[in-house]
């Protein structure tokens, strides 16, 4: 079996393996869905002991490639997938992948919270008695124990997964992927796994990934987070519009800007958004008075229209609860005052909030943001159906105009009103969600982690949209833990600690300044 030349990058870490057969090799894989080619002649080669990143925008063909390798989709005829030089497919038999040396850790980790660690790890591979076919728990426990020992993580096999910390859950998912494998063999694919892990647990996760590669396992690391790719990966393969544009480029020679260009095909820096979309001074304000609910104990502040006000804090500070309170999504008390109109959060429902143009763009796109089985047009127009349509007729003109405006303004792909949202990439879904709520000139716009799980291209578009909606007169509350985003869009920053506002800072900000504001010692009072 021949090796491709890309498998032997100059700075390859595992020099002694450099001439070996690739652990995983993909040659000429293509995939066509009803006449549209979504992946065209993709190739990829992972050397033993290598951490190889796969990057690309939403819709670039990245997830299609992973799904072809994992047997979810069947590739078009012609390509080939090899593991350690042995032909694997297509077609790939998903049920046999584990024995063939290929393991996957998916985004959601695929664990059942109510079952024990042992049950989660051993599912499908249970040790069973010869005659009774009873699950041999002791043997399972021992096997799980061996795997954790190898990984160097002390986790009780009998603990329920629900009781574990997020980083321990990742270890459980990894243990499941690696068990009964000769140490250092095979390939493990992390498909956006780091998204399931909170910030503070990431270093431990990275250590685990490096440890696996150090043993000789090849790691394919799929990620949107370019900083993560830069710090972790040895080489990177980039996809764009369904094609591999760069295969196996050594990461050592790349900076974030170069990597962004690789992903986008152009410069993706958001630049000076605040400078480009400056605050247009207005006199009107939106007031939050004594807002409480969940972990939020008291949020009282005046938000100036035309400004983007960031709200941040640690995960347990209450920032996760605040957006739902302001959008009527969960029970709250306190008052929102818009144009002299008092909205008592205990009494009013979503319709009254929307009537006062207090709008929430929720983080949970599938659960709360969009009806993904319905079309772009239906999703974009639903908030306005009551006000624009006549009682007994929806009318077509306004729906087409508004939907086209959203598609144009946010560059939604595909450019089709009747595209079903579920068929679109995450970044494009998020653009549709923005369009749904931003077209109606909101007065108070609460954005909840708006750039989560979108690629750099969509991120730039969403941050720009945030500045523009403020210029159009909205008081924007940008609730996020992403320091880069907060620094890029905010005119002002509020920090929540233990459910109350503790700091109120004026911009402009650098990411470092935002981070320092979050972790500064408590000032002991509300500004």
């Amino acid at each position, binding site marked *: 079996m021949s090796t491709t030349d890309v498998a032997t990058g100059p700075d390859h870490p595992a020099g002694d393996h450099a001439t070996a057969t690739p652990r995983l090799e993909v040659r000429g894989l293509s995939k066509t*869905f009803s*006449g549209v080619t979504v992946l065209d002649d993709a190739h990829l080669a992972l050397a033993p002991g290598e951490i190889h990143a796969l990057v690309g925008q939403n819709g670039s063909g990245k997830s299609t490639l992973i799904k072809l390798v994992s047997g979810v989709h069947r590739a078009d005829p012609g390509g080939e997938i090899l593991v350690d030089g042995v032909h694997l497919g297509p077609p790939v038999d998903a049920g046999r992948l584990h024995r063939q040396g290929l393991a996957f850790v998916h985004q959601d980790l695929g664990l059942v919270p109510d079952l024990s660690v042992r049950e989660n790890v051993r599912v499908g591979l249970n040790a069973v008695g010869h005659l009774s076919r009873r699950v041999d728990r002791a043997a399972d426990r021992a096997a799980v124990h061996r795997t954790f020992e190898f990984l160097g993580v002390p986790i009780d096999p009998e603990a329920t997964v629900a009781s574990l910390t997020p980083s321990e859950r990742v270890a459980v998912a990894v243990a499941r992927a690696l068990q009964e494998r000769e140490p250092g063999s095979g390939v493990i694919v992390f498909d956006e796994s780091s998204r399931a892990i909170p910030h503070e647990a990431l270093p431990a996760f990275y250590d685990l990934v490096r440890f696996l590669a150090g043993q000789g396992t090849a790691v394919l690391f799929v990620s949107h987070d370019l900083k993560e790719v830069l710090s972790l990966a040895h080489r990177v393969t980039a996809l764009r*519009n369904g094609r591999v544009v760069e295969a196996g480029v050594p990461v050592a020679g790349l900076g974030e800007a170069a990597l962004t260009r690789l992903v*986008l*095909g*152009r410069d*993706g820096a958001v*630049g000076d958004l605040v400078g*480009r*979309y400056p605050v247009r001074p207005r006199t009107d304000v939106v007031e939050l008075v004594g807002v409480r609910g969940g972990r939020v104990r008291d949020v009282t502040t005046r938000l100036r229209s035309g400004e983007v006000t960031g709200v941040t804090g640690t995960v347990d500070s209450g920032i996760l609860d605040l957006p739902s309170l302001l*959008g*009527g*999504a969960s029970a709250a008390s306190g008052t929102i005052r818009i144009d002299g109109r008092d909205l008592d959060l205990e009494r009013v429902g*979503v*319709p009254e909030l*929307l*009537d006062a143009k207090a709008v*929430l763009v*929720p983080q949970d796109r599938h*659960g*709360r*943001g*969009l*009806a*993904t*089985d*319905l079309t772009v047009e*239906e999703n974009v*127009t*639903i*908030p306005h*159906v*009551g006000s624009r*349509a006549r*009682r*007994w*007729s*929806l009318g077509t003109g306004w729906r087409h*105009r508004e939907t*086209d*405006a959203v598609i*144009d*303004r946010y*560059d939604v792909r595909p*450019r089709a009103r009747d595209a*079903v949202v*579920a*068929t679109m990439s995450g970044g494009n879904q998020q653009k549709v969600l923005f369009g749904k709520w931003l077209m109606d000139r909101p007065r108070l716009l609460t954005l909840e982690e708006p750039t989560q799980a979108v690629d750099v*291209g969509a991120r*730039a*578009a969403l941050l*720009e949209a945030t500045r523009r909606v403020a210029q159009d007169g909205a008081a924007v509350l940008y609730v996020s833990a992403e320091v880069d985003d907060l620094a890029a869009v905010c005119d002002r920053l509020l920090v929540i600690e233990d459910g109350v506002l503790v700091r109120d800072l004026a911009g402009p900000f650098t990411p470092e300044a935002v981070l320092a504001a979050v972790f500064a010692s408590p000032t002991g009072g509300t500004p």
Partner: protein
Amino acid sequence: MTTTTDAPDVADREPASRAGTTTAGRRGGAVRDLARRYSLVLLWLVMALVLFALADVPLSNFLQGIFARQTPLVFLGMAVVLTMAVGEFDLSFPSVYALSGASVSSLVVLHGWSFPLAALAAVALALLFGAANALLVVRAGINPVIVTLGLGSLAVGLGGWVSQETSVSGLDFTLSNIALARVLGLPMVFWYGLALVLVFGYVMSSTPLGRRILFVGANREVARLAGIPVARVRVGAWLTSALLCGVAGVVSAAGLGGFNATSAREFFLPAFASVFLGTVAVVPGRFNPVGMFIAVYFLVTGVFGLQLLGYQGWVTDAFYGVVLVAAVAASAWVQRRVRG
């Protein structure tokens, strides 16, 4: 309307690739779309032709046998479409229909009520069951399968009680005009069904109310956050569905001159089969009235054709069962196609 970004340095748009192919592909797509929407009609025509060729009866008799059939299926199918469209599940509809039919006949024949009064009482009773379903499912949050299974059994029991466990007959035969008077050669029942389907089809596809129903069925939380009164829409669906079952019972009783409460169960399977079969037609992937209407006559044609060929009784059950499973499988396949 084209809004362009007013910041030239963020001209982050790739050239619209494949622009040429989309327009060319669209025409082929339109044909495919049409084929997808109306393949059930085509299948129906083929089946009708085959059965007609085999059956050796005059065409007019064949058509009369299909379209002049006295069936409450369209009413009941519409009731099921409504509850399914808002994401509910109703097993009680045939029982509520039976209770209404049994009540109207018994009140007139056994208790001497006037027909209009008895009809009102029967429909009110049906609405009461709709309200009870709504209360338990929407307000109390109990699993709709359990609620409607239980209340359905209660309705059947009540139906047996009011009709004194007999098949009540003896309604004034002039009342049968309500159901059977002919217009353009077809009985009123057919025209009621057609009107019902057209009205509900319009409401569901082309009015703000229809959009609200669509979103409540698709994702309740998304609907709620868009300001839609989710509970009200769900309760409305339960009540309207019960109203349709009640009216269907009255119309059936009038047409038949009486009612046999135990016969109602036979509509259970064909109603579900038509509703699911209807999701592969007209608006693929969605519960829709016109698709359901086509599916009802697809089923009626099949059963009638088989009867003409001498297959009766058990064949009907087998046919409905096979069509239900095939319809659900086909609709799952369409769903996957729609979602890509």
